[in-house]
């Protein structure tokens, strides 16, 4: 018969084993590589300039499962000068892409709102590509107390 103590010992061992099996030891480096790759895909290595883009997201988030996020880009949205795309990327989510939005002069204003999941305390990045091909960026650090995506809290 298995004693309570022995059972707990076995259960703890099994749990820690499962946790290790799910998370490769170089998870930090992998996430960083994935985030860099996503950024490179979006911009093609082009220079990122700060300004124009405003990412509005709460700095302290209780629940990462639905975080309101607004991106506003300062642009006249005319045929000649408008926002072509807006991308939102994260650093430490299992997949760095969050949303990619394609706009045009008919949007009138470059202003989008959605709700996102955040897996960890990290920096959220919003990138806008203008019709002249330039990229503008805004980065906001956020603190997440309850993470999304991996609900057992394994990051």
């Amino acid at each position, binding site marked *: 018969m298995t004693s309570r103590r022995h059972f707990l010992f076995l259960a703890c061992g099994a749990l820690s084993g*499962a946790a290790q099996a*799910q998370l490769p030891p170089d998870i930090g480096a992998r996430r960083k590589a994935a985030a860099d790759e996503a950024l490179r895909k979006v911009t093609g290595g082009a220079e990122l300039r700060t300004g124009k883009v405003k990412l509005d997201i709460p700095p302290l988030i209780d629940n990462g*499962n*639905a*975080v309101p996020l607004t991106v506003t880009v300062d642009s006249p949205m005319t045929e000649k000068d408008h926002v072509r795309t807006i991308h939102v990327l*994260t650093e430490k*989510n*299992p*997949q760095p*892409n*969050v*949303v*990619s*939005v*394609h*706009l*045009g002069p*008919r*949007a*009138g*204003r470059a*202003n*989008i*709102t*959605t*709700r*996102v*999941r*955040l897996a960890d305390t990290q920096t959220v990045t919003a990138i806008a590509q203008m019709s002249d091909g330039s990229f503008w960026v805004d980065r906001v650090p956020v603190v997440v107390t309850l993470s*999304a*995506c*991996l*609900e057992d809290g394994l990051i």
Partner: protein
Amino acid sequence: MARTVVNMPAQAKRGEIIEIKTLAGHVMETGFRHTERGESIPRDIITQFVCTYNGTEIFRADLFPAIAANPLITFTTVATESGTLEFKWLGDKGFTASHSAQLTVA
């Protein structure tokens, strides 16, 4: 067919910028979660949202697993002429949902 909600004004002045709020009922399963038995839960998300205004595409969004369940998307457009706005959501496992709304431009 999933439940969809679109909130926008029914009437607008010509040239006015109107705000459109859209919501589709969907679990947006990320594909990164596991069951209690350790089996991976397959990804099931909405991957694309498109809005057309009298047949012309005015807004498109590519969604990823990091979008919360029941994706809410808010955007704007210029009221150019009276007509129909069509909203379409496409996703994994052949998911489709659509909604249409009338806009009268004075």
